[in-house]
């Protein structure tokens, strides 16, 4: 794949947050930002499938492992910015919110959008840390038993 520009990377990273956010988190963020007027639904939220690929042995040639349900949406702002969302699941409202945020992110209001994502980022990070710590508590610490015969 071609290398992405820095701007594309930043947009990609924001889209990662939309995917991991809850529908409520996204609609709250939009509410705080103020939903722009006269948004055009270029592609009204649509439900479909993506075939998930995995690799043989984890690292080898790809194979088709099974499908995932995906909702996509695209919106256009009056300024011409096009927001796009592709997300796991069947939540149409959430996909449209993500597309709206993606569009707003491309306007002069990028900083505001990024700020609105910060609490979501923090929540995701906290949950991950908790999950990881709980898993880590189940890590096996081996110890060697010294048998008594020679003592």
């Amino acid at each position, binding site marked *: 794949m071609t290398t992405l520009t820095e701007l594309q990377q930043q947009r990609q990273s924001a889209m990662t947050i939309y995917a991991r956010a809850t529908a409520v988190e996204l609609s709250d963020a939009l509410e705080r930002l103020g939903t722009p007027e006269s948004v055009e639904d270029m592609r009204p939220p649509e439900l479909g499938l*993506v*075939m998930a690929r995995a690799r043989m042995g*984890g690292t080898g*040639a790809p194979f088709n492992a099974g499908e995932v349900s995906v909702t996509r949406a695209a919106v256009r702002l009056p300024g011409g910015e096009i927001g*796009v969302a592709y997300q796991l699941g069947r939540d149409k409202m959430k996909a449209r919110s993500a597309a709206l945020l993606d569009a707003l992110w491309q306007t002069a209001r990028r900083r505001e959008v990024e700020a609105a994502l910060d609490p979501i980022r923090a929540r995701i990070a906290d949950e991950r840390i908790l999950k990881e710590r709980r898993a880590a508590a189940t890590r096996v610490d081996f110890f060697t038993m010294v048998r008594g015969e020679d003592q």
Partner: protein
Amino acid sequence: MYVAVKGGEAAIANAHRLLDHERRGDPSVPELSIAQIREQMTLLVDRVMTEGSLYDPDLAALALKQARGDIIEAVFLVRAFRTTLPRFGYSQPMDTDAMFAMRRISAIYKDLPGGQVLGPTFDYTHRLIDFNLAANGEPPTPKESDSALAGMPHVTGLLDQEGLIEREPGAEEGSPVGDLTRDPLDFPAGRDLRLQALARGDEGFILALGYSTQRGFGRTHPFTGEIRVGEVEIEYVPEELGFAVLLGDVVLTECEMINQFKGSASAPPQFTRGYGLAFGRGERKAMAMALVDRALRARELGEDIKAPAQDEEFVLAHCDNLQSTGFVEHLKLPHYVDFQAELELVRRMRAAHAENRMDDEALEAAE
């Protein structure tokens, strides 16, 4: 003469209405919500996703509710649903090496990078019924470790560094990947198609076949190199963007079996591999799949094909529980005319048989 017979519409409608009623059970017992099924019958939901070949926990939970908990009926509903949806495309290959693991164990190395992490497992439980669960008590909060998890490279990678295990051949970028939801399965099938079929195959069938290889029907001398369960990122490149976007995280279970050797005049002996992958937490399925994947590589590895688990047509043509149930269960549909024909045939045969006997007896009497 063919006489078309119609009827049964009212009976069918009433039967479905009765089914809806029976599904609800005793109305004095609170109704199950989809969220309850999704959160508390997790492994059942995971199995329906795996065999339905569609990752969507809420949909699988709903299908299970509708199917009164019948797995294959739920799989049927999920598969039927997916046929109504457009296919946007194929994901980027998922990177299980970067899995955010909640469980990772190896049966071949005690000490390995990342360690043995048991996670939420039934292993080492005593399998005693816990009557506390009937009393609806809340479980204690899980323990937390102060330290984070270390990176968990694939165990097979460690063997690979020494050249002790066969390397998984990569593929040229853009080379075709078989998809049995697009083209009917043809034999001999490539490993891509075999893995796809096994991944959506019936857990019971694959388990029995895997077990058969352990009992000597196509023995492969397996070790569990590694089992890992956790969240994996799934990415997709929309045409309109031209770069990969995260669709979300899916829970996967992966099993790598390490099997006995293969070598040749030119190549020194090496361990061989079998691979299993399931949606959600499907450890038994992933392990059994890895055994059967390895058994089905018999042709490629120059082994004699003698056992059912090595016969790809036998395995792949019968591992799909929806196909199996379709053909078995169609037998209960009306076969009145077919049976009428059989009845007439057997009556004619009996008449001929009786006539022959009378002739024979007459002949004997005459002698």
